[in-house]
C-alpha cells in the first residue's frame, strides 16, 4: 500500500469548484512534482492535504490512517509537514527555536515541567537542542543557530523552513514553491538539499514549483493541474511532451 493515497479529492468555495477529482499516490522515499499554471489549484490541494481546508469530496489516507478533513494538528501528528510559498518563519524567534518549535508534538512535556524547570524539562530540552542542531547542521546553518530568523538571507530562510518542517519527523514533506525567488546558484544548491533530504530522512516529498528545469530535473513523477483538474500524470519526459500540458502553459498564464 502506498504511503499517501488520495482519491477523488475536491473542494468548492461557494459555487466555485476549485479542485475536483484530484488523485495522487505517493510512495516513501520518492520525489513527486505538482505543477500547473497559476490558479490551477496546487496550493489549494496542499491546503487540503494539511488540513487547512476541509475537502468537499474525496478521501486522503496517510499510511493507513484516514486524515480527510482532520485538523492540522492531527495531520501534523500523523506525519505530514509543509513549507509555504511565501516563507512563513517565526520571525521574532531564534533559528534554533524555530526548529525546536517544529518538534512541538514529537518531544513533549507539560507546562508545569517548564514552570518548575525539573529534570524532565532539562532532559527534553537537551534532547531538542541536540536534534535541532543536528538538523541545522545538515543544512549548513548550524553556525547561525542564535540568529533571529529574520536576519537570515533569503536562501537560508527557505532552508530553515524545511528544517522546521523536518523537525516534526514527517513521513511526507510538502514543499510549496521552494525555489521561488532564488537565484540560479541557490536553486542548484536547493536541488541538492532536496535530494539529500529524501535520501537521508527516507521520506516522500511532494513539491509545487514553477521552475520547470528544477521540477524536471528532480522529480520522478509529475502531476499537472489545470483549472482544478488533473490533465496529465507521469514521468518528467512524458509530461513535458504532453500536448495538453504544453497548451495549458502556453495558452494560460506564463510563468
Amino acid at each position, binding site marked *: 500500500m502506498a504511503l499517501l493515497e488520495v482519491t477523488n479529492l475536491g473542494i468548492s468555495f461557494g459555487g466555485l469548484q476549485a479542485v475536483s477529482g484530484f488523485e495522487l499516490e505517493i510512495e516513501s522515499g520518492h520525489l513527486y512534482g505538482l505543477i500547473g499554471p*497559476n*490558479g490551477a489549484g*496546487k*496550493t489549494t490541494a496542499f491546503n487540503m492535504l494539511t488540513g*487547512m481546508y476541509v475537502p468537499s469530496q474525496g478521501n486522503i489516507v496517510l499510511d493507513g490512517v484516514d486524515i480527510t478533513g482532520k485538523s*492540522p*494538528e492531527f*495531520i*501534523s*501528528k500523523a506525519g505530514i*509537514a*509543509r513549507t*509555504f*510559498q*511565501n516563507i*512563513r*518563519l*517565526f*520571525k*521574532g*524567534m*531564534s533559528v*534554533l*527555536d524555530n526548529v*525546536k*518549535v*517544529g518538534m*512541538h*508534538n514529537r518531544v513533549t*512535556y507539560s*507546562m508545569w*515541567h*517548564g*514552570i*518548575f524547570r525539573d529534570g524532565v*524539562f532539562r532532559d*527534553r*530540552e537537551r534532547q531538542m*537542542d*541536540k536534534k*535541532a*542542531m543536528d538538523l541545522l*547542521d545538515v543544512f549548513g546553518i*548550524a*553556525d547561525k*543557530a*542564535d*540568529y533571529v530568523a529574520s*536576519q*537570515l*538571507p*533569503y536562501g537560508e530562510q527557505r532552508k530553515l523552513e524545511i528544517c*522546521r*518542517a523536518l*523537525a*516534526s519527523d514527517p513521513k511526507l514533506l510538502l514543499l510549496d514553491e521552494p525555489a*521561488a*525567488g532564488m*537565484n540560479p546558484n541557490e536553486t542548484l544548491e536547493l536541488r541538492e538539499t532536496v535530494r539529500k533530504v529524501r535520501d537521508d530522512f527516507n521520506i516522500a516529498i511532494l513539491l509545487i514549483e514553477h521552475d520547470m528545469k528544477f521540477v524536471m530535473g528532480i522529480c520522478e513523477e509529475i502531476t499537472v493541474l489545470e483549472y482544478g483538474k488533473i490533465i496529465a500524470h507521469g514521468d518528467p519526459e512524458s509530461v513535458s511532451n504532453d500536448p495538453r500540458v504544453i497548451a495549458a502553459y502556453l495558452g494560460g498564464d506564463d*510563468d
Partner: protein
Amino acid sequence: MAKKGGNNRKKSTRTYIFSFALILVFWAVVEILGHMNMLSSKMLGLLIPICAYAIMAVSLNLVVGFLGELSLGHAAFMLAGATAGVVFYNSAGLNMPQVLRVIITLVIGAAAAGLFGVIVGVPVLRFSGDYLAIVTLAFCQILKNVLSTTYLGVDSAGIHLAFDQGSFRLEPGAKPLIKGAQPISGINKISPDMMVSFTVGIVLLILTVAFVLNLMNSRAGRAITAIRDDEIAAKSIGINLTRYKLMAFISSAVFAGLAGVIYVLNLSTLDFKKYDYNLSINVLVMVVLGGMGNVPGSIIAAALLTFLPELLRNFSQYRMFIYSIVLIVIMLFNQAPAFVQLRQRLTAKIRGKNAQEPEGGEKADTEFFEAKKQGKEDE
C-alpha cells in the same frame, strides 16, 4: 555545536538575572531606607501599588507582548481577584491566623480571576482577530457595573445575595460584605508594618516574573511566541492555537487577581469604580513603554509610571502635561531609529565585538529577491 545552543540560553539567562536583580535591589534599597526611617508616608504608600502594577504589567505582557493579542480589560481580572479575596478576608477569614488568612485570600483572588479568564477566554480565543480587545473592554465595564449593584451579606440565616437594595435585608448586627455602589471599607492591612506588606508584594512579583520567564522559555512559551509570529505556520506544525492562547490568557488573569488582592489589602477600601477602562489602559501603557515581551522593561515602566504622578503632585497644574511629555520621550527612546541605533552601538561596545551582524551584501540580495517574490505572490 553544543556551545551555540548554549549561547541561545545565555541571552535568556541575562533576562533572568537582570529581572531578579532589579527586583531584589529595589527591595533592598527600600528596606534599608525604611529601617532608617527615610521614607515619607507618601513613599511608603506607593510601595505596594508599585508591586501590584508591576505584577499587572508583567502578566499583561504575557498576552499583549508574548501572545500578540490585545486585551483592554486587564483591570477586570484585578477587580475580580480583589473582590473575591476581600469577601473571604472580611468573612470566613476573620478568625484565622493572619498568615493563613492572607495566603487563602491570595489563592481565592487568583482563582476567581482565573475563572473569569476562562469565562472570557474560552469563547473569544477560539477566533483569530481583534475580538479579544472588544470583549475584554466590554467585560471590564460589565463586571464593574454588576458589582456596583450587588448586595452580599451573611447572617445566621445564611448567605444573602441581591441586586437591588430593597430586597436585601440582613439580621440586625450582621455586617454586609458588598453594599452596592458603596466602596467596601475597613479592610485590615496585611500587616501593620508596611515593610512586611511590601515584602509580600515583592515575593508575589518574583513569583509572577519567575512564572512568566519560565513559561516563555519552555515548550509552551515557544508555541505561544510561534502563534504571535505566524498563526498559519503555527497551525501547520501542529500547535493547538486555542489551547496555548488560553494558557497565556488565563495565566495572565490569575496574576492580575493576585495583584488585585495585595493592592486592595493595602488600600483598605475597595471602590469598584476605580477598576475601569482607564486602569486597563494605564497598565497597557506600561507594557508598551517597557517593551512588548520585555519583562524587566514592564517592571521598570510600572514603577516609573506609578511613581511619576505622585512626584508631580506638587505641580498639579502641569502634572498631566509633564506626564505625557515623559511618555513621548520614553516612546521615542525605545522606538525611534536614531535612538535604537545609538542603543545598539552602546550595547555592542559594552559587549565587545562578539555581536555578529549579517553581511550587508547578502542582505541587499535578499531584499532584491524578496521584492521580486512579492510581485509573484498571487495564488
